[in-house]
C-alpha cells in the first residue's frame, strides 16, 4: 500500500522517465534540426546521475553542444546517416536501429522482434503513425512505447488507479527485459560508427538509462508482487 508521499514521488519519477524516453526517442527518430539543436543547447543535463555511462554520455553530448557553429546541423545529419544508415551492402556497415537486425541470426529487418513488439503495441491500444516509415522495432519506436507507457502510469497514479499503474509497470518491466537486451549491442555499434561526440554520447546515455530503468522496474515490480 503506497502512501500519498510515495505515490507523489512515483508520479514524478514516471513523468521524468517518460520525458527521458521521449527525449531519446526523438534523437533516434531522425536527424537533428536547427530548432531542435537550439533546444538542446538551451537545456541542462544532469552531471551526476548515478550511472557512470550516463554521466560520460552527458559529458560527451554537452561538450559537442558547447562547440556548435553554423554547420553543426549538417555535421550531425552526416553522422546520423553514417551511424544508422551506412553505405555498405552487408549487414555490418552501420549501427542498424532495428531490434530484428541485432537479435536475428541473419541480421535482417522485419524479424520476430518486430512481430512481437507489434503485438505488444496493439495490446496497449497503440498503432504506428501513418507518416512513420520505419519498422515497429526501430529503437525510436520502442523508446516511444516506453515514453507513452510511463506517461500512462503517471496518469493512472494521479487518477488513483494503483492497480492499473502496477499492471502497466509490469508491462514496461517485461518490455525492457525482452526488448531492450539489444540496446548494448546497438550502443556498441554506434560508438564504432559515429564520429561526433553527440552520437557517441547518445549511445552511452541510452545504454546507461536502459540499464538504470530496468533496475528500477525490476525493483518496483518485485515490491508490487510481494
Amino acid at each position, binding site marked *: 500500500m503506497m502512501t500519498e508521499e510515495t505515490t507523489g514521488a512515483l508520479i514524478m519519477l514516471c513523468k521524468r522517465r517518460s520525458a527521458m524516453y521521449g527525449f531519446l526517442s526523438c534523437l533516434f527518430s531522425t536527424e537533428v534540426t536547427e530548432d531542435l539543436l537550439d533546444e538542446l543547447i538551451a537545456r541542462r543535463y544532469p552531471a551526476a546521475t548515478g550511472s557512470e555511462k550516463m554521466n560520460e554520455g552527458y559529458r560527451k553530448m*554537452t561538450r559537442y553542444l*558547447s562547440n*556548435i557553429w553554423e554547420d553543426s546541423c549538417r555535421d550531425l545529419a552526416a553522422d546520423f546517416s553514417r551511424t544508422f544508415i551506412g553505405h555498405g551492402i552487408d549487414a555490418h556497415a552501420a549501427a542498424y536501429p532495428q531490434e530484428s537486425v541485432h537479435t536475428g541470426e541473419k541480421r535482417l529487418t522485419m524479424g520476430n522482434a518486430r512481430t512481437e513488439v507489434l503485438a505488444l503495441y496493439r495490446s496497449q491500444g497503440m498503432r504506428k503513425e501513418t507518416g512513420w516509415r520505419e519498422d515497429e522495432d526501430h529503437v525510436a519506436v520502442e523508446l516511444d512505447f516506453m515514453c507513452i507507457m510511463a506517461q500512462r502510469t503517471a496518469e493512472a497514479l494521479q487518477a488513483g488507479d494503483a492497480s492499473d499503474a502496477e499492471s502497466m509497470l509490469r508491462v514496461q518491466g517485461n518490455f525492457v527485459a525482452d526488448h531492450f*537486451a539489444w540496446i548494448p549491442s546497438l550502443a556498441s555499434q554506434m560508438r564504432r560508427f559515429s564520429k561526433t561526440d553527440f552520437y557517441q554520447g547518445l549511445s552511452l546515455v541510452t545504454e546507461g538509462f536502459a540499464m538504470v530503468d530496468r533496475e528500477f522496474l525490476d525493483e518496483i515490480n518485485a515490491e508490487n508482487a510481494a
Partner: protein
Amino acid sequence: MLGNKTADTLCLPLLEGLEFDDNPGSGIDLPDESAQTDPVIPEKTHKERIEGLYAAMPTYQRTLSRVITFCEIPRRTAEVDAKLDELQEYNKSVYDAGNLCAIMEENQALIRVNESGDALPEAPREPDVVEEDGVQYLQPKPRIEVCFMATVVALARVAAEDHHGKLMERMNLEPQFKPIYKRILQMCDVEGGISMSELDQALFDAKLLRDANLYPQRFVDKLESFAAIEWKGSWFVTETGTAALRALADAEEEIEFAESEE
C-alpha cells in the same frame, strides 16, 4: 510514431510468467571495440594536401582558387555561401558551401578562425557546470561564431598560379593554331560575350582546323582551362585572356576558310 496515445486500454496479462533475463545482452554478439584498428595512412605535407585537393577536383580549380582568394580575410559561412552561389551561377555543382568548405578545411586550404582571424582553440570548449538546489548540471555553451580563412600555403598556391604563362606555353607548343586562339579571344572580348554556336559557326570551316581534324570546342576548352575565357551565360574574355590577346598582337590574324560543303 505510436498513435492513439491516450487510448484507454486494459493491460492484458500477455507477458506474465515470462522469465527475466538477468544478463541483458547475453546471446547477442557484441563487437570487441578494442579490436577495431584504423589502417595507417602516411601523413602528407600541407602543400601536398592542397595540390591533392586541386588534382582531385580538376574542373573545380578556378572555384577553389576564387574561394581561397575570397577567404584571404576571415569570412562567415553565410558570406562564403553567397560567394559560392555567385561563382556557381553558371557552373552548377553538387557542392554547396558547407561541404566544399569541409573538403577545403580537411585539406588545409581553409581553417576555422574567429572574426579577428585568430585560430580557434584546438581543445573543444567544455560545458559550464551550474548548480541548482544542490544538484549539478552541465550547461552547453552558446553557439560559436566561426569564420573561414585561407591558409598561407593555399594563398601561396593561388599567388603562384601563372595562367598566362601556361597559356602562352601551350600556344607555343602549337604555334600554327595561334590565329585560332586569337580569333576566339577577340570574339569573346565583346560586350555581352558570345555563344558557343556563334564561335562554332565562325570557325567550323577554318582550313587549319579541317586539316587537323579539330573543332573550335577544343580551343575553347583549352582557353577555359587556362582561365582566359569564362562562361557567364556566354563566353567572356578574362584578364588572363586580355593579357594573352596583347601577347598575340603580332600573331597572324588571317584565317583561311575551306569551301563550305553545302
